[in-house]
């Protein structure tokens, strides 16, 4: 070990890089399609009152957002599911942080049915059976004698993962049609009398929301402010923002505003539920 000359060179490089590393011109937000309308509304309102801020919002799905966060191509990732341990491990390996998780809204994963469907409530076990392909006919859950047509999200979607992990708990049936975005799911169910779909509460327009109950003996609930606030609706989840590091500067200001009463009012306006 004769040569330590490289150490000062590296330290100089470290100082130079530190001085330039934290300048940030604009905030990029990427991820959950469920949250995209909410995130766009937040950005729009924030930029109105803070004209110097530049916030760019794109969707793509929670999985895409988390990958972008790990790859360093977004500042904020919106996710409709918590980060998986494997994703946290990737953040640790690349950035040596655990990431910062900020619950920013609540959502009830809503079960969309066609307005003509006789069925009005389903248990979690029935939903699992339907999406796992074990229950194939509406008459098995009190509806007409007709084949159930399944609509769902693509596997990059946080809602897809959340619904899989918390409700289906098995492989999705092979005949589930994967659609890009909750709006597409709602649209498909609107047109298909035998269709069923799932997605964020904010998109439920022109379809019938099924009441959901934990089991046959429980009370069935619609995803409303009250049922979600009380935690009674069985498929209630948080919507998250993730960052690589603790926010500073404009990003911190923006997040603080989102969590303020003003930012949380937007959550309600869009059709989700505030965290506080």
């Amino acid at each position, binding site marked *: *070990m*004769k*040569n330590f000359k*490289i150490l000062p060179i590296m330290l100089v490089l470290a100082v130079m890089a530190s001085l330039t*590393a934290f300048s940030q011109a604009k905030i990029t937000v990427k991820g959950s399609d469920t949250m995209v309308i909410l995130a766009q509304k937040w950005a729009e309102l924030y930029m109105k009152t803070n004209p110097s801020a530049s916030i760019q919002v794109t969707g793509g799905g929670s999985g895409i957002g988390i990958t972008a966060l790990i*790859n360093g191509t977004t500042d904020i990732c919106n996710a409709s599911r918590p980060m998986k341990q494997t994703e946290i491990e990737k953040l640790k390996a690349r*950035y040596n*942080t*655990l990431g910062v998780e900020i619950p920013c809204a609540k959502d009830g994963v809503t079960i969309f049915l066609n307005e003509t469907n006789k069925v009005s409530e389903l248990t979690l076990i029935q939903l699992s059976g339907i999406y796992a392909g074990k229950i194939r006919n509406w008459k098995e859950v009190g509806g007409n004698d007709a084949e159930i047509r399944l609509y769902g999200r693509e596997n990059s979607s946080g809602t897809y993962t959340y619904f899989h992990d918390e409700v289906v708990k098995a492989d999705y049936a092979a005949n589930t049609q994967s659609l890009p975005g909750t709006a597409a799911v709602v649209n498909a169910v609107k047109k298909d009398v035998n269709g069923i779909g799932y997605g964020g509460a904010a998109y439920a327009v022109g379809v019938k929301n099924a009441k959901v109950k934990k089991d046959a003996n429980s009370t069935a609930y619609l995803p409303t402010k009250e049922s979600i606030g009380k935690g009674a609706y069985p498929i209630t989840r948080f919507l998250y923002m993730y960052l690589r590091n603790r926010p500073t500067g404009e990003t911190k200001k923006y997040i603080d505003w989102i969590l303020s009463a003003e930012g949380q009012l937007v959550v309600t306006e869009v059709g989700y539920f505030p965290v506080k």
Partner: protein
Amino acid sequence: MKKLLAIGIFALISVYGFSQTQKPDSLKDVIEKHEGKLNALDERVLVNEADLSKLNKIKVSGYIQSQWESYGADLEKSNGYNNTFYIRRARIKFTYEALDGVKFVLQPDFSTGNLSLKDAYAVVNIPKLKNWTLWTGQMNRPDYEVEYSSSQREVLERSRVIKTIYPGEREVGVKLEYAGTKIPLKFQLMAMNGNFTGAQAKDFDSQKDIMARLVYSVKLPGAGVGIDFGPNVYYGGNLSKNNKYFKNSDGTLDSLKSVWKYLNKNWVGGEIQIFADVLGGMAIKGEYITGINSSPSSVAATSTMAQMLASPSLYNNFSGYYIYFVKNIGPKNQFVAKYDYYDPNTKLSGDAAGNNIYYKTWTLAWQYYLNDFIRISLNYEMPKNEINASNPTDKKDNTLGVRIQAKF
């Protein structure tokens, strides 16, 4: 000409008349016809979707590490050159997720002169035991630095102690793993052949080695700190087929009851990784391992007593550790300082140690992440060896390396 014109007009009238005799399709017919076509298309799309969903279950990833290294004078003497370009690794990893909770992984390495199978294993979620998985095949041994992929590692090479006790990183066997979701705990238990070097297909002996690792994670989100820590243990043996004599770590000669008995190969360790968000990410990661390693005598069964006594099996009490300091500087840069120590025989030092000398190695590195796919590493490794009669000076064996890694 008139005749030709008359024939043409007649032909046109005939065609027109014929077309007039055909009934036009009713709207219903047209809709039915198109509905049939759409249904056929729908079926084709469904078939294609089913095929595509199978393809979606296959994930292909990989990386190429192309590097240049420059060596100190003593390494130049042994290598015959003082610098070289080479491909350190060229890997493609195929992952097929057949079903929810059933995964197959195959990873060959195509680096020059080193076509080898690195990983070939299946992972199955154990039914009714949430968070428990069973792994079978050829895979990494359960150790932090071993499992930490070289595509992510902050320095070019693993620590000397890890490279010595886990050569090639992989083993063939079965592994039971618990990765808690509610409880932040990871537990790994692996039974393996125990002697895998990457070359032989089957075990050398009957005894299977056991390795266990436990990692508990503590998160302090308010402080932006996460700590992972835990113990690990290795329990195994090496068969001494032809020579019952062995030399202890302190140099004394001893004997097994007979040949065809096992030499111990046992060690324990502890690891800790601290991650902190201090003006960007920062990590301090370390592991300490100590125990007994053994190497069986290579004498032939027909050897004389004198030959057996001259080449006994060896027991070595060893210890080693490594510690990394990693600091992220913005999203693209990373500074790394690493210190590692390995003493292959803790019972002997100075001249008595002969060539079983300790090494203390400093490594300084800088990573630059050009984009999602490309990482450029500058790495300077400075080993310092124990000095004794057999090794009278600190070897000139520093290595400067520059690596470009392309990952997909």
